[in-house]
């Protein structure tokens, strides 16, 4: 076997082994260097995986050499390869940004722990995305969750502690719901391997146990992905976490949960016919629409920009959920491409906010007044990513919106199509509030004292903002992958 054959395992094992190495090393700079190396290695591995899955079709990797369903199997198909690339790409860019920001926001003697948590979180997220075993998802979910709680709690404001605690409680409830759901499904099928389970579920699809299992899985995953109205943990967690943690989590954590939802609901339960027999898609659509409007509307009134963008995430998750709820190839492709697109623009925004916090010590709307002239590069990145959030053409947000609307029209759901467009107008309101404050307001005292952020923060921020334009101008690549992924997912869904 060549190294290439082991890539699926390495994608997870490399960050996993990096964590103890970081703890053993302890020196902040060394810890950071390891985190950067690992993130970029994961990106390289994920890129390779995506390339080979697109070229040669799905393949699996048997951990411990045990055949599925007896052992644990890694199954790489276009969907999870794409998610792997998203997560590791965000991690790679954010890792470069981390050194300067972490040095300012975290105690020196805790920095190595921060980086250890960072790679563990990455490891957990990648593990969830690549595995083909339903229980293994739970294990890696917990790795990522526990590390996330700590990352959030390391924020400077004391409210970070309560935010982390609430996240811990709700996250654990969500994970336990997931375990209940998997337990019930396991009980009726006798297997934990997702592919095997998908094969065996249709025979028992009529039982109440399987229906209850589906319900628990949807609620459990819904909690982790912060789908409205299960989003209560998210705004505070994002608002008070350290800048680096917020940027990383906003780009990755909820995305991977969405992936798990896709994998479980469509991949595993798709063949049971329950998706159409139960009003599940209608429920998801209602949650999505409510999230889109409530999230955006609340975002308009937030005095703290990190919170505003956190609520915007709730709305954006609504878009993703909506795409799934159409249960059509275009809709799914829209949802999947929006996973990528939203990850890029939200990371860009939170990185830029991190740069603002770096200089001002705050990201409140009254403090950023007039900052546009003091930190032109940072604020230009905010503007570009903000336009993308609105869905202005030539940015990634437009691509997502386009396909969502197309899917809504394809499904004949005209009011939904209008709702998508209307809700994007709410984004204009909260983005433009920032624009007006930054460029057209009288500078605050804090802004007057500020200068442009250090290059080490600007470059990663602009890497993301640039990507938001790049993949918005030429979306053929991302849409191609998203379509392939959507087709692969829909293959198993019973009509």
């Amino acid at each position, binding site marked *: *076997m060549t190294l290439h054959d*082991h890539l699926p*395992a390495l994608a997870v094992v490399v960050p*996993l082994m990096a964590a*103890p190495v970081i*703890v053993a090393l302890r020196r902040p700079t060394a810890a950071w260097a390891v985190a950067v190396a690992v993130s970029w290695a994961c990106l390289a591995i994920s890129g390779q995986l995506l390339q080979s899955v697109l070229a040669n079709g799905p393949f699996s990797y048997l*951990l*411990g*050499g045990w055949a599925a369903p007896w052992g644990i199997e890694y199954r790489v198909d276009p969907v999870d390869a794409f998610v792997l690339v998203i997560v590791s790409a965000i991690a790679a860019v954010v890792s470069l940004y981390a050194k300067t920001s972490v040095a300012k926001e975290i105690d020196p003697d805790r920095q190595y722990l921060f980086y250890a948590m960072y790679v563990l979180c990455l490891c957990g997220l990648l593990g969830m995305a690549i595995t083909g075993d339903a229980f293994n998802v739970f294990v890696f979910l917990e790795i990522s969750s526990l590390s996330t709680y700590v990352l959030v709690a390391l924020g400077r404001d004391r409210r970070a502690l309560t935010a982390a605690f609430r996240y811990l409680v709700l996250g654990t409830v969500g994970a336990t719901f997931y375990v209940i759901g998997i337990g019930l499904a396991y009980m009726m099928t006798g297997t934990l391997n997702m592919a095997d389970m998908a094969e065996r579920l249709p025979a028992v699809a009529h039982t109440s146990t399987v229906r209850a299992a589906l319900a628990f899985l949807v609620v459990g995953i819904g909690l982790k992905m912060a789908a409205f109205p299960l989003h209560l943990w998210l705004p505070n967690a994002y608002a008070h976490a350290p800048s680096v943690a917020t940027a990383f989590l906003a780009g990755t954590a909820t995305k991977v949960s969405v992936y798990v939802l896709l994998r479980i609901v469509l991949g595993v339960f798709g063949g049971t016919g329950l998706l159409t027999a139960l009003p599940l898609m209608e429920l998801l659509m209602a949650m999505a629409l409510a999230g889109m409007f409530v999230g955006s509307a609340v975002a308009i009134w937030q005095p703290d920009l990190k919170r505003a963008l956190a609520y915007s995430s709730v709305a954006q998750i609504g878009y993703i959920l909506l795409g799934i709820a159409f249960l059509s190839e275009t809709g799914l492709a829209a949802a999947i491409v929006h996973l990528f697109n939203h990850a890029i623009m939200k990371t860009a925004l939170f990185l830029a906010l991190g740069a603002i916090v770096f200089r001002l010590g705050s990201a409140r709307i009254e403090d950023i007044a007039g900052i546009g002239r003091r930190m032109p590069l940072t604020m230009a990145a905010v503007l570009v990513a903000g336009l993308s959030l609105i869905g202005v053409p030539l940015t990634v947000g437009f691509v997502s919106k386009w396909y969502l609307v197309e899917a809504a029209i394809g499904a004949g759901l005209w009011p939904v199509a209008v709702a998508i467009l209307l809700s994007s107008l709410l984004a204009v309101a909260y983005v433009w509030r920032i624009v007006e404050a930054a460029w057209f307001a009288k500078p605050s005292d804090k802004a007057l004292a500020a200068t442009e952020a250090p290059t080490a923060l600007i470059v990663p921020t602009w890497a993301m903002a640039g990507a938001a334009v790049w993949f918005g101008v030429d979306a053929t690549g991302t849409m191609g992958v998203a379509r392939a992924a959507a087709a692969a997912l829909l293959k198993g869904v019973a009509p």
Partner: protein
Amino acid sequence: MREKPILRVGTKLLIPFILLFALYVQFHGDFGPGGGFQAGVIFAAAFILYALVFGMANARAALPAGLRRQIMALGVLLYAGVGVVGMLAGGNFLDYSVLSDTPTTGQHIGIFLVELGVGMNVFAAMATIFFVFASRDPSAKEDG
């Protein structure tokens, strides 16, 4: 607790037996109930008992923070390392059968090593969690 010699002597006598039991659990897990995880917890329990009776300072001297951290890290690395060795030996990650000429021997070696890794990690992690909690000054107030 300085005035309770019986407790101290009793504890000193008890601890070796606890450690022995932990080792038994560690290595007998293949045949009966037990394994690295339970052994690690029991091993940690011995130190917790020691700390409770002889005080945190003594316990910390017996098991310094740096050592705990290294054991903890080493445990994880050992487990994952076995997997990597399996990879290098031509199998998949965590394939123990390739560790030796006969698959079952390989499995034995692999399971022994990963259980050891689990034991080390759990022991050090549990001890660390306890020590950190116990070292916290109950009257401490942080101001933000």
